[in-house]
């Protein structure tokens, strides 16, 4: 039984890393959002499985938040924003897909090497969760730096937060306060982003961050 619990948890957390990879090569905004919804769904399953395995009912709340807000509400709202802004064309990637994927693999390898070596004494499940979580955080950062479009940067940031939730649930018995705050902060962050996107739209009719980088009279 223990073996099964461990294997399923392992599979789900690993799946989350794979979905992070899938996000790296999406070149359309709608597709990126759909993959993000999948990411959140896998996260909800992972957390729910942890809740079941560790018999920690409060984690179900975290799973529910991931499912409802991140997998459903946020993608739907972002869909509508994209439609309203009329920016469902291709995403311009700063770096090509190939180098990005290679960099992603390098980052995952790095986080495995670092985390597995450092957490040698920790409980094996927490250990793997932390290693996977760090990979997801780094992949999220990579997504943010390779995109110029504000919406896809936000998606990158949200996938990064998913990695943090995985780490928080992986740490045994971490108090609920933190988990709620993580979920809550994502919500707040989302509202902030929403306001920003609308303001940007209102003023400039573009959400391309590079268009915002205007020359300021100061060479930088």
């Amino acid at each position: 039984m223990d073996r099964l619990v461990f294997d399923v948890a392992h599979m789900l957390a690993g799946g989350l890393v794979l979905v992070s990879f899938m996000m790296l090569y999406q070149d359309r905004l709608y597709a990126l959002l759909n993959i993000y919804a999948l990411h959140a769904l896998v996260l909800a399953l992972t957390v729910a499985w942890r809740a079941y395995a560790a018999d920690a009912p409060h984690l179900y709340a975290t799973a529910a938040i991931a499912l409802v807000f991140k997998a459903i509400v946020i993608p739907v709202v972002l869909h509508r924003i994209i439609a309203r802004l009329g920016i469902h064309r291709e995403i311009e990637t700063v770096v090509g897909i190939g180098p990005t994927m290679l960099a992603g693999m390098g980052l995952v390898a790095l986080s495995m090497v670092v985390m597995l070596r450092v957490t040698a004494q920790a409980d094996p499940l927490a250990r793997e969760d932390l290693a996977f979580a760090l990979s997801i955080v780094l992949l999220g950062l990579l997504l943010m730096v390779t995109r110029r479009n504000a919406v896809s940067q936000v998606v990158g940031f949200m996938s990064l937060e998913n990695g943090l939730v995985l780490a928080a649930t992986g740490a045994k018995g971490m108090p609920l306060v933190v988990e709620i705050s993580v979920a809550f902060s994502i919500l707040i962050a989302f509202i902030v982003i929403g306001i920003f996107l609308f303001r940007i739209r209102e003023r400039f009719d573009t959400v391309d961050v590079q268009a915002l980088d205007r020359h300021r009279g100061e060479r930088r």
Partner: protein
Amino acid sequence: MTGFEFNAVGAILLIPLAAAGLLAALPGYRLTARLNVAASLLTFIAALSLFVADRPAPGSYFLVDDLNIVFVALNTFIGFTASLFSASYIGHELSTGRLTATHLRFYHAMYQVLLFAMNLALLANNIGLMWVAVEIATLTTVLMVGIYRTHEALEAAWKYFILGSVGIALALFGTILVYVAAQPVIGEGMQAMVWTVLIQRVSEFDSALLNLAFVFLLLGYGTKVGLAPLHAWLPDAHAEGPTPISAVLSGLLLNVALYAVLRFKLLLAANANALAPGPLMITMGLISVVFAGFMLYRRRDIKRMFAYSSIEHMGIITFAFGIGGPLANFAGLLHMVMHSLTKSAIFYGVGHIAQIKGTQRIEEIGGLTETHPWLGWALVCGVAAIAGLPPLGIFMSEFLVVSSTFAREPLLALPLVFGLLVGLGALFLRLNRLAFGEPRGATGPAEASYAPMYAHLALVLAAGIYLPPPLVAWFQNVAGLLG
């Protein structure tokens, strides 16, 4: 008596929170600006009462000790003077139409939420709570920076938001790692996130995990401090937001983030096998000082220039705490207080200057000492103070930083002094244009209150000439605690 003690902490947190709710609901800027000042003053008085009252035993959420009292007192004091400045500043913004009445309500409410979040971060005994507080502070400042809704303001707010969130995310990962390290020793649950419990048992923690956690925490909170490779948000956020917010950002928020780093540095220092946090902090501090020193030469915008000077000074403070030992810690603490007072005074002055001239571009501002002697000479004093000239307070703290460096790591003193001199040159080059020579730009009268600015400068001057012994004893005690 214990009931009263709790109330002091409660008051510091609840007054701003209640005021935020009230200010969001009330119309009319004169009334709300005064209320804002009153609430900030009350919070400051509550913070002062911490000095005299007996301290509550550290609970699982809040802690009052010698270290954070200094920070809380400084925080609430500058919060109060900045609210005074803001009251005179904001009327002008309203009359020129840069802000509307609705914006102003929002602005005042956010101002109090920001004070609340910073006080919460300083008083937190729980590393999770501290993280939440820093996150709230970040989000409120993002909203404040973008409040003018111009092209540049939105760009600055967006950049700040993205970089700040990444920093905050890394800090959360570090916080989780600290919990993972603590959990086998202390056990599951809330106790493993309480700082006072952690510091007692930290010697038994797995040092490799702690090291990794500290790297994430330093990078994460270091982004908020504005240390050099991670500083990109800071100049834009300072330049594009309302000036009272620039003053609060520079004077307070950077300190709060640094305070978080210090708390974790203490944890690491108490574990014999963990890596020494000093060299990491020294490296980041030095890079910031030298980098900001050079960057100061290229500035064309007056607020951006002083923002780079903040990066330089946060570098000096981080460097001093990285060197460690009673003298360097003392110097770091003193420098932090002096920098907060001086830099916010400068921003108050700059706010008035920008309003008179209607621009922030340095080349369109000139001859201030002739057209506005009170303002111009205050700026000269402020820049002399921030550049570290005697007899002002920053000279003394910089002197202490440099001399303690010579005592412990003589070679490191060279790049530090080099960076300081480079920065000093740039500041005076620009000051010369701003304060002397042919008057340039509009010369209308300033409708402003100079009181907060002069009060700060007087304090800095007084501290440079004579530090009262009880204050010295207090700082020495805290410096000893910092190890």
